[in-house]
Structures are given as C-alpha cells and as structure tokens.
C-alpha cells in the first residue's frame, strides 16, 4: 500500500502553476528567537478592519504582554506590548502598503526579558463558544497567513449560516516560506489546542488540516500526534501554487466552490492558517495577547536564512541585520512570499502580524531583470494558469482599452484575487496582475 500511494495523486484544484520552491533554504531550520530591536514600531492598523485605539501615553512604561491599544468595535483587534520598555512616541511610520500610518513607538529596555509577565490563567474547558470568541479578540489574533483578517470574526458566521468544517491551512504555497512547516512540526500541541478551540467556537463537527505534499513529514507528524478521539484529520494536497488560497484549498479538500461574492461560511466552512491556530492554542489558556510570530527570513540576498520568532514591530533593518543581508546585492525586499507579497520602499517598515516571511531577492536575479513586453500572442497560458478560470488574456486587452467596467461586468474581474499566476506564465511579460489591480481600484473609485 505504501508503495502504491506514490502513484496516487493528492487532491487539488484546477489550473495553477509550479514555481521553483526554494524552500530547502530554511525548511530544516528550527524556529529561533532573536534579540529585541532597540525600538519596536507597532502600527495601529495592521489588520483588516478598524484600527486599534492607543491605551498608552508617551513616556508611559509598559510590560511585555500588556495591552497598549484596544479594539474599536467588533471588526477590530487590540495590540499588546511586544517587549518591556517605554512609549517613546505615537506617530506616523512607513508601511509596506505605501502610505504612512499611526503607530506606537516602543523603546525597549536594554535588559528586557523575553519572559511574558502578563498572564491571566483561564479554564478553557469551562468557556462557552461566545467566551472563546471574545477571548480570541482580546488576544489580538488575526489571520497570520497573510490575510490579517480578525480571527474572531470568522468564528461568528452570519445569521442562518452553520459552520460544519474547519479547514486548517498548512499549505504554505508561496516559494521560500517555511514558517508554517516549522510550526506544524514544532508547535503541534498548541496547534491541536487551537483547532479544538476553533471547533468549539464555531460549532463545527470536524477539522481537516490541508498540507501540500512537499511537507509529508508534517502530515506524518500531525497524524501521529493528533489524539484518536478528536475529529481532526491531516490531508496531503498537491504542491501547486496557489494551493494555500482559501478558495483553492476548499475546492481541493471538499470539492466545493465558494459562490461568487460569498464567503466560505456560505458553504459551511471556516479556514484558519496553522500559525493562527497555534498562536490561539498558545495564548488563550494564559490569557495572553499576540506579541510575536514566526517569520521565515530567506532569499538569495540573505546569508543566514532561517525561521525566527520575531516580536511584532521589529523593523526590517534590524531583522535583516541579524541574518546577514548582503546590502550590495539586495534588489527587492518582500513582505510575505514572492508571488503575492509586497516589496517595501524602506527598511524602516516593521514586521506586523500578517508578515509570514521576509524575502530578499538579489539585484542581479534574472527573475528581477526588466524584460521586454510584447503584445499578447494569445498563447492561452494564462487561461491554463488562472486558478479561478478567468480569461486574463481578454482582461488584459480590455485593460489596455480602458474598458474597466466591462472587465468587471462581463469577465468577472472582481473574482481575481491577484495570485499572480497569469503574469508569472506570460511569455509576453505583460504585467497582467498589475493591470487588474489598477482596474479594480479605478472601478472602486468610480463606484464610490
């Protein structure tokens, strides 16, 4: 049977691409702690939704783990002090998105301990689903896979919708990234505790952990440690980008599609990243807040790539200094993975809750070289790559003709989640993904 399973293809979705993975750089590097940066920068808007509101004043001393900003309403999360120190300022900081945003600048005390002193012991078994949802919000948890959507919101499906299945996303389909891989191997106890909490809070009957089949060691490990009496299974899915996109993973595992304009909750599904649930399982029993996360720091311009437990707010300049950034060779520094991540304009940008990786590409990297853009030759490669079966070739032509309305009304532009597959395969080097981003933003502006 074991022999035969080699020939069995793991379940998957339609289309997609197979970029070079580059995961061997860090896949076997255990998660390591780094010293604190002299100053941490904690943006108030590092999640989807309403920015948090500061609870601290300039000059105030804070203890590692202490809340420093509160959630503003349900669609918001609080912030916690990632280190013991003093608030130096509340001012603007650059972010990966471009515009500057309000942030709390925390000067870290030199002798600050990595120990978290701010505990609030809780009995998880006695908590009701609503109490868990509230506790998840209090912990400041957001989707750590890169979405940064407040986790507690997904636990409360819209009225009339029932969550039947929790899908745990351990695909990590972006090249270079291995933080989720390490979390599954090293933090499986916390992960299982987090899955149990998610099951209880959502009322789902089962949880399925989906892992790309380039991490079969993680699948084997999870299968070995998941208690037999729990309705949790670990499943391998094909290694194919963008397997880790919520809609793709749902299709791969459940053979169901999220309806256009709908949410996974519409088909009874809630999807959580493994990193999010591992943090949930770690933080909730002690009533702590999210103050650090696992980040893969990798790429050809990094001398010592690895997986690190990084305090939220650590500036990239400090982080990259710890891993030996080759300053003379670096081209782009990308937050997240190279397919969907954003290149930063400044190394003063801090690591936020959604940053799963920092990838430093080389200047001479052929992948970065400026290439000649040819007209579309209708080769159809983009149609065979688009995971949601759009017609990027046609959309690209319409974008050039500035028919942005038609792109949305006739060719489902709004379904595009900018995975980048079309631009990746295009032999004419047409920046299709960028065209679609611009078209969507023009449509948004026009429609208010």
């Amino acid at each position, binding site marked *: 049977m074991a022999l035969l399973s080699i020939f069995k293809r793991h379940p998957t979705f339609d289309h997609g691409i197979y970029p070079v993975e580059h995961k061997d750089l860090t896949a076997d590097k255990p998660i390591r702690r780094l010293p604190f940066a002299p100053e941490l920068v904690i943006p108030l808007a590092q999640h989807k939704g309403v920015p948090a509101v500061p609870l601290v004043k300039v000059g105030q001393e804070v203890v590692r783990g202490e809340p420093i900003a509160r959630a503003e309403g349900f669609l918001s999360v609080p912030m916690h002090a990632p280190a013991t120190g003093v608030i130096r300022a509340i001012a603007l900081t650059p972010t990966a998105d471009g515009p500057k945003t309000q942030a709390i600048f925390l000067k870290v005390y030199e002798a600050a301990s990595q120990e978290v002193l701010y505990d609030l012991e809780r009995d998880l078994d006695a908590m009701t689903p609503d109490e868990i949802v509230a506790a998840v919000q209090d912990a400041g948890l957001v989707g750590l896979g890169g979405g940064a959507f407040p986790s507690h919101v997904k636990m409360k499906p819209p009225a009339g919708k029932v969550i039947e299945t929790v899908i745990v996303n351990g695909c990590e389909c972006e090249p270079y990234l291995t933080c989720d891989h390490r979390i599954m191997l090293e933090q499986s106890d916390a992960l299982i505790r987090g899955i149990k909490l998610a099951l209880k809070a959502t009322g789902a009957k089962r949880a399925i952990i989906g892992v790309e089949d380039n991490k079969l060691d993680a699948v084997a490990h999870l299968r070995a440690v998941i208690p037999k009496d729990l309705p949790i299974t670990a499943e391998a899915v094909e290694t194919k980008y963008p397997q880790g996109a919520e809609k793709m993973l749902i299709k791969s595992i459940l053979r169901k599609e999220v309806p256009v304009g709908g949410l996974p909750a519409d088909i009874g599904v809630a999807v959580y990243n493994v990193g999010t649930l591992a943090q949930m399982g770690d933080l909730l029993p002690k009533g702590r807040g999210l103050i650090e996360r696992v980040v893969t720091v990798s790429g050809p311009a990094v001398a010592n790539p690895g997986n690190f437990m990084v305090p939220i707010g650590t500036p990239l300049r400090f982080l990259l200094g710890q891993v030996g950034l080759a300053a003379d060779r*670096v081209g782009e520094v990308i937050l997240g993975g190279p397919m969907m991540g954003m290149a930063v304009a400044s190394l003063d940008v801090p690591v936020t809750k959604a940053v799963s990786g920092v990838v430093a590409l080389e200047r001479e990297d052929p992948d970065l070289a400026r290439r000649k853009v040819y007209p579309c030759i209708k080769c159809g490669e983009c149609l065979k790559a688009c995971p949601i079966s759009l017609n990027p070739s046609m959309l690209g032509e319409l974008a050039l003709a500035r028919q942005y309305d038609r792109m949305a009304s006739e060719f489902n532009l709004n379904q595009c989640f900018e995975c980048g597959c079309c631009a990746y395969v295009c032999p004419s080097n047409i920046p299709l993904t960028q065209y679609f981003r611009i078209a969507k933003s023009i449509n948004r502006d026009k429609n208010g």
Partner: protein
Amino acid sequence: MAKPIEIRTSPHLKRAISVDRIMRNVVFALLPICAFAVFQFGLSALLLLLTTTGVAIATEWFFSRMSERGSTVSDWSVVITGILLGLTLPPGFPLWMAAVAAFVGVALGKALFGGLGYNVMNPALVGRAFVQAAFPVAITAWTPAFAPGRFAELIPSTLTVPFMQPVPVTDWIAGLQLDAWTGATPLALQKFQHIELPVTDVFTGMIAGSAGETSALLILICGLWLAAKRMLDWRIPVAVMAGAALTALPFWLMDASLYPSPWFVLFSGGLMLGAWFMASDMVASPVTTSGVIIYGLFIGSLTVFIRLFGGLVEGIMYAILLANALGPLIMSWTQPRVYGTVGKGRGRVSR
C-alpha cells in the same frame, strides 16, 4: 545601503520564457522540414525559402519603421511566416511571385492589423491565398521530387522575369525522362483519377507536392518536438487530424474506390504542415481550451469536405483561414466557467 532597494509589484517571480524564445524554437522546428524540402527539390526550393523569408523580414522591418514601434523583427515571428509560406508553395514557383506572396502576407495579413498579436489570420496563409487567386496556374505547376541535377540547375520557372508568366515546366519535366511522373500530386491523382498512392510513400514524402508539405513523418516529428517543449498546443493538431479522419471515414467506408482512406487524408497534401504549424499559430487560434478543440475539428472536417466536394484539390488553407476568422466567435462560446459561478459561459456575476 550601497544602492537603494528596488520596488516592483507582485508577482516578483517570473517563468523563464518569452515570446522571442517560443518563436525561435518554432523556427528551429521548421528547419529540418526546410532541409528536407531542399534535399528533395534542390536549389529551387532553397531559393524559394530564402526569398519568402527575406521578403517577409524586409516587409516587417519596413512597416515597423513606418509605425514608429521600433523594429519588431527581433521577435522572430516574421521568420516563421516567411518559412511557412515558402514551404506551402510549389518548389518551382517563380521567385517574384513568392516575393509578392510574402509581401502581401506580412503587409496585409499582419502589419495592417497592428503587427504581432493583433492579426486575425495566419499571415503566411493570407499571402498564399493571395497568390493562389492571382496566379492559379503557377501555383499548381508541380515538379517531380528528386529530379536528377536538382542541386546543379534550377527548375526553369523559378527565375521567371517579374510580372511575366513563367515558362511551362512540362517540357523541362519531359526532358528529365522520369518513369513514374504523372504530372500530378497524390491529392490530384486521388481526386480526379481515383488513384490512391501507397500511404507509406505519402507518409515519408517520396512524392511531388509543395516544397515542405510532402513528408508527413518529418512534420510530425518536428511538431511533436515542439509540443514536448510546451511551445505548441498539441490539442490543435490532434483536433485537426481527428476532424479530418473522422469526416473522411464514413465516405471511405461507403465507397473505398471513390473516396480516400482516412490515412491517406491525414498524410497527403498540406494537412500535416497546416495542422502542426499553421492551425496552431497562437495568435490566430482561440485561447480557450475547449475553443481550441472546436477550432481544430472544424479545420479538419472542412478540409476534407473541400477536398472531396469542392472545386479545389486541397482545402487546408481555406479551412484554416475561415477558422481563424471564426476564432472570436468560438471564443465567445467557450469562455471558461469561473470558480464559484453556476452554469457555462462567462458566469453570472452576483455583484
């Protein structure tokens, strides 16, 4: 920092492939076919291919200069057009007519539409269709393969003075004193005299015909190589061949003495070259996966109908040109079903 860091939008990775590399590989795939054409028909075929390719390149260069787009010759696509055009012409086709075909093909078939990527039809076939209509006699003046002295002398019609009618090649052929020369291609023999040449001869190319269309075997090998490199959508040639074979089959079953066998249909005339290298032209074929199959089946089927019941001996050229024109229509029928939508087509948009 030694230098400022760079900023680009995602995706930050790119597959190592480009238009010029695809086009260059198509040219490489065509070279063995060109070599066989020269081996079979001699110097005349060589001059013919050089003429069509040279004139095609010159025309492209001229129009790209005029349109201020900068030279587009370096994308190699016009080289394919020139070679393909040469391969579809009779080996002894007058060079000045071949030059006209190349000019018309690139100028009217490609440059007029806006160059690479914008042409509706295959430029090589546009050029050939033009000379088929303009010079109906010259384009059906076939000469025997493996003529003795083919590397020393030219077929007399090759060097016809521009704007003059070529000398008939019949006297020259009679002078060669070949035993088996019937003066017709296998297709014409089959159509008008119902004589079917052995499929093996037709398959390997030991026959008369257009310069580069005779050896189905060689075209098949070159096409498969290109498809294996993923620079040619194998669905198109396979659909063309399936369409042709399936259309020919019932007629052949009804009356094998009158109608050709599916094998003969596949390996004779320009079907192989058309299926593998012209119908598969990326620019002029549909982009949708199911559209490509409809397109291919249509070409194959229509080719057989023209051959069997039309006024022409060969139908692949007009079949491809017509299918090219129908491309946008086929595409609008075959838009893929978008994830999360119900039913076929463009899908319903709920917001």
